[in-house]
């Protein structure tokens, strides 16, 4: 063993001596030689047909979508169209699913449970807690995802994503981050955990950390339903109904862009404080546009993405539903745990323009952003003691239509300001537990995981506070 060790050291010594002897930079020498040979071989075997120069479709599109003036507007427009189609298209299937899962199957399950004499708490946990939260997640999340993911995959398959990275590259460089962060950011719009893993494409550890920490500022798909719903209720209702869909979509895009801005600001801040350094250069290849394969897009986006994300949500919604039911139904001194907490936190929450219900909902919903809204609705019913909604205390439910939700939230003391702040807080709060765990796995560091977790919360509280103060000054 000892001998082998010595032998290896000797080998490295010989290598070192030889390097001195050669004197030339072997690395460059080899690289040059590789390039030379590649060129020779390629030119020997390739023939370009001469003749009429065909119209170059690719560079024509590239000139438009990566243009200094038209690049960004086109980007925003495409994003807005995708969201608009999602918002408008998801309405009908959503209510159909909710009718099936919540209005039809849920009462049926309750009857079955009664028939078999389930104890009240078991019925509560299983059917009113776990099943209902799962049903809610499916009816609210499945339709928008089934529309959004194919559209997004279409853009991806067509070859548009690298152009986004190309447009964003210069900006990311300016803030001291890696241009490829634009790509990981785009991944984050689908799922932050996926975006964090995708940061592996960034070579330098410094820039990779920045990309990982700021990925949470990409609005992930677990948060669109929240954004879309709240935007529809509190912003869409401020404008005439024929404009409501468009304006709501525009506001959601605005929040998404705000997220991008925050990712830039935080990247800039990190690269000047904790993660100092120069941005490294990289080559980004603009792949040719390819005619998208529609069937394949539908397959990958529906089976791989939609069902995968949905499955994750269901898996988390199930236990979370049970927890919600428990905190709402276990009483201490005639008051449920949930109400104790809400009363205690409410003054501080109202101070930053939110309320106790929202804070508790975000704590319960750490496993998955998808269940924030159902949790909020359930907790609101609980605290306002409204009757005629859902199926009793601690039961998550779907309301027949959006105006019911609006009525409920307003009864819970919500104003337009609460709505705006909830949208902001939904953008700026801790990543979900899966993402936190992924960040830890990728960085292997408690410190960076903690920073990535708490930095957005601090920002969220700060932003909500400022917006609230500003609101009171203005109105």
């Amino acid at each position, binding site marked *: 063993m000892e001998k082998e060790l010595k032998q290896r050291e000797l080998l490295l010594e010989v290598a070192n001596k030889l390097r001195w002897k050669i004197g030339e930079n072997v690395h460059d020498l080899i690289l040059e030689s*590789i390039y030379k040979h590649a060129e020779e071989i390629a030119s020997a075997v*390739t023939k370009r047909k001469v003749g009429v120069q065909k119209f170059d479709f690719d560079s024509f599109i590239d000139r438009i979508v990566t243009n200094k003036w038209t690049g960004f507007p086109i980007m925003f427009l495409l994003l807005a169209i995708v969201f608009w189609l999602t918002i408008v298209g998801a309405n009908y299937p959503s209510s159909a699913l909710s009718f099936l899962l919540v209005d039809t199957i849920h009462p049926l399950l309750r009857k079955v449970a009664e028939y078999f004499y389930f104890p009240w708490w078991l019925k509560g946990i299983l059917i009113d807690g776990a099943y209902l939260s799962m049903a809610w997640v499916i009816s609210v999340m499945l339709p928008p995802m089934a529309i959004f993911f194919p559209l997004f995959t279409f853009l991806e398959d067509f070859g548009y994503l690298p152009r986004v990275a190309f447009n964003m590259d210069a900006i990311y460089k300016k803030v001291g981050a890696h241009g490829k962060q634009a790509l990981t950011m785009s991944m984050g719009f689908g799922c932050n955990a996926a975006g964090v893993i995708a940061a592996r494409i960034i070579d330098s550890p410094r820039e990779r950390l920045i990309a990982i920490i700021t990925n949470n500022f990409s609005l992930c798909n677990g948060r669109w339903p929240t954004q879309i719903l709240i935007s529809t209720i509190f912003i869409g209702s401020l404008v005439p109904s024929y404009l409501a869909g468009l304006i709501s979509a525009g506001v959601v895009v605005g929040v998404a862009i705000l997220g991008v801005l925050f990712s830039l600001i935080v990247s800039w801040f990190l690269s000047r404080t904790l993660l100092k350094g120069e941005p490294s250069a990289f080559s980004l290849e603009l792949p040719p546009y390819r005619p998208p394969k529609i069937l394949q897009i539908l397959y990958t986006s529906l089976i791989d993405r939609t069902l995968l994300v949905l499955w994750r949500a269901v898996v988390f919604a199930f236990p979370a539903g049970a927890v919600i039911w428990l905190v709402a139904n276990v009483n201490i001194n005639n008051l449920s745990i949930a109400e104790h907490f809400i009363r205690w936190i409410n003054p501080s929450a109202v101070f930053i323009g939110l309320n106790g219900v929202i804070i508790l909902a975000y704590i319960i919903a750490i496993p998955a952003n998808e269940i924030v809204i159902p949790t909020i609705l359930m907790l609101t019913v609980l605290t306002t003691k409204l009757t005629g909604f859902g199926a009793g205390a601690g039961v998550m439910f779907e309301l027949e239509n959006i105006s019911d939700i609006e009525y409920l939230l307003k009864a819970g003391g919500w104003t337009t300001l609460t709505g705006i702040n909830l949208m902001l807080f939904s953008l700026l709060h801790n990543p979900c537990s899966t993402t936190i765990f992924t960040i830890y796995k990728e960085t292997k560091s408690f410190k960076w995981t903690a920073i990535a977790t708490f930095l957005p919360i601090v920002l969220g509280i700060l932003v909500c506070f400022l917006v609230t103060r500003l609101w009171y000054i203005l109105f």
Partner: protein
Amino acid sequence: MQEKIIEKCANCPAHNLNHLIRLGIDMTDYDYVIALAGNPNTGKSTVFNNLTGLKQHTGNWPGKTVSRAEGGFIYANKRFKVVDLPGTYSLLSTSTDEEIARDFILFGQPDVTVIVVDSTRLERNLNLVLQVLEITDRAVLCLNLIDEAERHQIQIDDKLLSKKLGIPVIPAAAREKKGMKELLQSIFEVATGQYICKPYRISNDFKELTFAVDELEAQIKKCFPNLNNARWIAFRLLEGDQKIIDAVRSGEIGKIKLQEEILE
């Protein structure tokens, strides 16, 4: 009698092509390991999906496959394990994805490395091909996106390319599932030793380095007798490649090979 016929059939391409059994993620008791390497966005994952029947996510942007994906298939009664590597422009620098690709070709010792290239960008893709050929002597070149090359009025003489590189070259359009049968047959032939590759080696180029490389190669072989890419490692040591230096110092380079043998 029955068995004999089947045996004969097993050597006939026409039979095999129609009897590709995709195994998905079932990779038990494989006979051969296939690595899929190539530049980013050349269609490696599409080829991978075609071979294994899996549905690895494919997308038109570079850097989508960040870790390796694995799958399996049966061809000509042999079980193959396929490893889809992250796309890289080179095997020389040290980002995580390049490391994964390089480590696997180097230490994983695949029986065949399939290099998937973008026919419309042959010259730049060849940079990686040449680097892979430095490490391994069993490779197949998949000249993918050949349909796009044709659309762009680019013609590639695949026979000449094969002669020059010393490995099979298969024109393909993986998205259209074209050329996959021929690719399978070539993989099979190289894996079983029916086709002996004579890979193009640029390392024969550096006359002025020969003395140093020879000396180091001998030393490396003394330390790690099991290693079959001693020459490539000699070059990396001369470059001062820190990863390889560390792997030599810790003895890791020899060990990985040893582990593989124990497993077998």
